[in-house]
């Protein structure tokens, strides 16, 4: 077919996209690695070669491990709630009985994920406020006064409080992905199971879960990668505090670079984030391919 035979035309069509991606995605990432080997400031032209010094310093910095732990915690809890609850809710909404209410619940549950994280962060900051916040007022109203606390102000609870707000925002998102997957399951499977007298719970365990196994794995990986990219909610709600207890890798990066003006250090942290997220993505692609082969 001659219409699409001209390679030059094709390249012309691709060139702008390629240029954008090469210049503003790939180049900065390569550049970032070199920048992590120098000591340099945001202003001022001189830079001093320090080699791997920043990586060594990061390896000895307790804040780095706090951040890493928090990212893990974030990923882990998100899997339980977003993937776990997301799946259960999707399965419920696809039940014959509940399907007629699906439109309403789907809209409501998904709504938070279209809101900017800044807004959610500022909103939850108020919800968690010890004396005027909704949460403590609610606990007092139902007689659980001893459970009230300064949610974002104590190192013990601050990280969990942030993670919780993120669950509030994203369970509906993952639920939606599951809804689509469940809709693809052949109806006959459910019908024959029902004939055999399987209850709703059994159908969930024996049909739904195995049938959407791939989606479960994919969603888990998406969630884990998301857990290592967290920045907005932490920056908005606690800025890493109290102390350094809610620091995550991205806020650690921001603080090193744009507050302490140690840009080389920030680049080094960025390289570490790159390695972690890149490896996770490769796992995602590998599983993707495996699934496709099956």
């Amino acid at each position: 077919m001659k219409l699409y035979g001209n390679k030059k035309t094709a390249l012309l069509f691709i060139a702008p996209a390629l240029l954008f991606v090469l210049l503003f995605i790939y180049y900065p990432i390569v550049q970032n690695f070199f920048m992590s080997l120098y000591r340099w400031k945001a202003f001022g032209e001189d830079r001093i070669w320090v080699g791997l010094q920043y990586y060594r310093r990061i390896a000895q910095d307790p804040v780095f491990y706090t951040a890493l732990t928090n990212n893990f915690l974030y990923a882990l809890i998100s899997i339980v709630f977003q993937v776990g609850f997301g799946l259960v809710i999707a399965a419920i909404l696809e039940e014959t009985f509940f399907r007629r209410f699906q439109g309403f619940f789907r809209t409501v549950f998904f709504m938070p994920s279209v809101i900017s994280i800044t807004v959610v962060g500022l909103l939850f900051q108020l919800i968690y406020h010890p004396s005027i916040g909704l949460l403590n007022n609610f606990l007092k109203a139902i007689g659980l006064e001893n459970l009230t606390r300064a949610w974002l102000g104590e190192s013990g609870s601050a990280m969990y409080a942030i993670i919780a707000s993120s669950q509030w925002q994203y369970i509906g998102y993952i639920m939606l992905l599951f809804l689509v997957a469940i809709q693809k399951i052949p109806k006959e499977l459910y019908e024959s199971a029902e004939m055999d007298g399987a209850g709703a719970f059994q159908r969930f365990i024996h049909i739904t879960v195995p049938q959407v196994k791939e989606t479960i794995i994919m969603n888990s990986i998406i969630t884990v990668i998301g857990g290592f990219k967290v920045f907005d909610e932490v920056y908005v709600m606690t800025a890493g505090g109290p102390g350094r207890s809610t620091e995550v890798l991205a806020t650690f990066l921001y603080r090193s670079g744009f507050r302490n003006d140690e840009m080389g250090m920030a680049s080094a942290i960025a390289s570490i984030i790159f390695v972690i997220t890149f490896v996770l993505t490769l796992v995602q692609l590998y599983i993707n391919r495996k699934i496709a082969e099956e």
Partner: protein
Amino acid sequence: MSKARRWNLSRALVMLALIIYAILIIYPLLWMLLSGFKDNQGLFLDTWALPKTWIWQNYVDAWNQGIGRYFVNSVIVTVSSVILTLIVSSCAAFALARFEFRGQNILLILIIGGLMLSPQVSLVSLFKFLQKLGIYNTYLALIIPYVAYRIPFTTFLIRSYMLSLPREVEDSAYIDGCTSLQVFAKIIMPMSKPILATGALLAAMSCWNEFMFALVFIESDKYKTIPVGLMNLRGSLSTDWTILMAGLTLSVLPMIIIFLVFQKQLVRGITSGGVKG
């Protein structure tokens, strides 16, 4: 059949749980909306009550004290980014979906591979790069990175759609003497409208809500977009919280409206992507 639709105890309990969860989602948003009408005393001391008097002025104040300016900036940045993303991505998608040439796969992987890289990693070097280009602290400092990071997904989305389009029309157009550019502009693009809408919606949402680049690449207040502007508005000294609440409400309204109107298109885009955020 009737059995499947009848209420029983366990169904009622599940329904109750769903309703409670729905309230957990709706109530905070409603609280934000209503608090925007209170005064500070009302917000702090009568958390649960409806506003005693409805202070519409808060919304006016929020708009005038910055939200208006940030809103306009967000519109400028979002609209330009979305338009540019769509043009660039659909061109690339067209070439990758229709043309056949050597090296095609490598280009495809290069462009879509951008999906694997997270923006955090390039924050520092991009910051320096934008400075060198002399566009740091301008609208372009946001538009260009936004477009770059939206291209991989949007190209992927549009390409898979174009692959599913029938080729008969194009073939006959070719016989009538159309060039590939004409085919692209007159046949492919009009046929791809639904997926372009989806791509536009997703891109708009991510640009409207983006925070980190907006925080780092913009310095002065007059170019700030809504997410960072809200942080500014909160300030570190005497802020009027209810005005902030009004501002929060104003800044989420466009997205909520778009979501409610275009739900179907959005859902299709999200479920075909496998990417979050």
